[in-house]
């Protein structure tokens, strides 16, 4: 009888030494990484004052807060909230559009196939990276200093921080474009501007449109929070109601945000597929 248990282990061991006797370094690597990760976690918990008593106190507080949130109730401020939500959507739409309009020419400067010179591209790219490295909330604070409190500062904040992201994404889309069309235009005597207009842009515009729509979606989310620092929209209402502990209004506002984001997701998803077909957008 030959069952699976009668396999000649010794022969197998001789034939595949790596499977049976992995070198100690390979076997220890995984546990060592886990131990290190865990050690940093413990250090972090201690350093960040994670005392169990504080944690459970907070949890019971949180339980009370959640109970007080039920049922969600806007009180008499529903019109104000609807207006704030409209403000948020406006901020997202305008900010994203502005960012896209300004990012398109700059992204051409950052694309390898448009500007071959590394020296010219490098500063443009680092410039875009620096803008991206600063969070939208920080930009909002800066713009509040310039144009004052209100949704306009929010529009400018979203526009600037998305400018950095778009510049990078667009230039990647442009670098992914087919060079043959460009060469064709050049062969027929087109100027560099013609090459971009007729060779590159028709290829990349659908991709870019998809990315812009996707960002309008994600910016609806960002726009809901920049109000926390005073840059308009529903975040302003939310932060205020949290500060005065009006929990029923808070839960109503959160519900409003969830519904609005879901609606925007749905609409722009449909639009995106209509424009570029069922292609994944990074």
């Amino acid at each position, binding site marked *: 009888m030959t069952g699976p248990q009668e396999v000649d282990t010794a022969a197998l061991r001789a034939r595949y030494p790596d499977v049976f006797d992995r070198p100690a370094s390979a076997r220890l690597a995984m546990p060592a990484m886990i131990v290190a*990760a865990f050690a*940093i*976690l413990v250090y*972090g*918990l201690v*350093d*960040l*004052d*994670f005392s169990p008593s*504080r*944690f459970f*106190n*907070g*949890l019971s*507080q*949180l339980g009370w*807060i959640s109970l007080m949130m039920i049922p969600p109730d806007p009180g008499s401020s529903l019109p104000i909230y609807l207006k704030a939500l*409209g*403000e948020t*959507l*406006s*901020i997202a*739409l*305008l900010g994203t*559009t502005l960012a896209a309009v300004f990012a398109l020419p700059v992204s051409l400067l950052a694309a390898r196939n448009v500007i071959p010179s590394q020296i010219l591209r490098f500063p443009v790219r680092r410039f875009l990276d*620096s803008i991206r*490295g*600063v*969070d939208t*909330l*920080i930009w909002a*604070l*800066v*713009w509040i*200093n*310039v*144009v*004052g409190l*209100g*949704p*306009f500062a*929010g*529009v*400018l904040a979203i526009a600037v921080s998305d400018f950095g992201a778009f510049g990078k994404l667009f230039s990647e889309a442009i670098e992914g474009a087919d060079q043959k069309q460009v060469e064709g235009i050049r062969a027929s005597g087109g100027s560099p501007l013609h090459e971009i207009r007729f060779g590159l842009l028709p290829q990349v515009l659908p991709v870019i449109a998809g990315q812009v729509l996707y960002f309008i979606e994600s910016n609806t*989310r*960002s726009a*809901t*929070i920049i109000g*926390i*620092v005073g840059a*308009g929209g529903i975040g302003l209402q939310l932060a205020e109601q*949290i500060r005065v*502990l009006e929990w029923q209004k*808070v839960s109503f506002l*959160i519900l409003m*945000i*969830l519904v609005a*984001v*879901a609606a925007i997701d749905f609409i722009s998803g449909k639009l995106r597929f209509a424009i570029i077909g069922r292609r994944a957008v*990074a």
Partner: protein
Amino acid sequence: MTVAVSILPEQQLAVLNAAYRQAVARRRWRLLLGIVVFAAALVLAAVGAEVNLRTLFTYFGNFLSYFDRIFTLDSGQRVWTDVGEWLWGWRKWLRMLGETLLISYVGTLIGATFAFCLNFFAAENTSPAPWLRFVVRRLLEFARTVPGIVFALIFVIAFGLGPMAGVLAIAIHSTGALGKLFSEIVENADMKPVEGIRSTGASWLSCMRFAVVPQVTAGYASYALLRFEINVREASVMGFVGAGGIGQELVVAIRKFYYSDVSAILLTIIVTVFIIDITTGWLRGRLFGKEART
């Protein structure tokens, strides 16, 4: 010269031409309609967002001069002429940055652990029951859609001021975001090993442990690293609402008009984000090969 292209008879050509013109015209109309609708939406949004170009043009100088001011020391010199004076608080700022990194590390790890536990229930192919999948998916969606800083605002009231609120807010947000991504990886996993293990009479838990997890860990780790990158940025502003980290210093500097401090703190944040981006990118490349560099 002879014409190589055969030309259709006049009548046939006219019909085709008309059809072509009609198709082009229809496309142009649709494009025009799209542009008009978009422009109308923009105008509406401009009114809604109280856009005031006059304010912008009047104060645009402020924007430029703001950068002029944050790059000027109290003594009136440019900041880079006296780096020691510019970065005077570097010890404190580095400590706060360290706190920011710890907040995002601990938050990401806790979030990834929860996402790991939940994602098998959310994936189409491994979830034990449809109702459970529905519940877990809605939970993850909720955690993902409510912005992290809103959680932070609420947690600051529940847990008190300090990094604990920031960590928990980041953990919850990461659970939502990673849970979705993880379950998508699981849905792409090969189900044949699962069938093989189930045929030996193994429980659901063993099926996950021995058939699914070995296939998906690399993808999990890659996404978790990416999330860590994002969370560092997020943690840098958690301090705005009192949830710890460098944001607290920054908001004080901005509100109190300590101009050169603003640029110094921003510089340290940008440099840190760069370093983290490069390091995690390198780590992802080394651990999972080139294709994992998303």
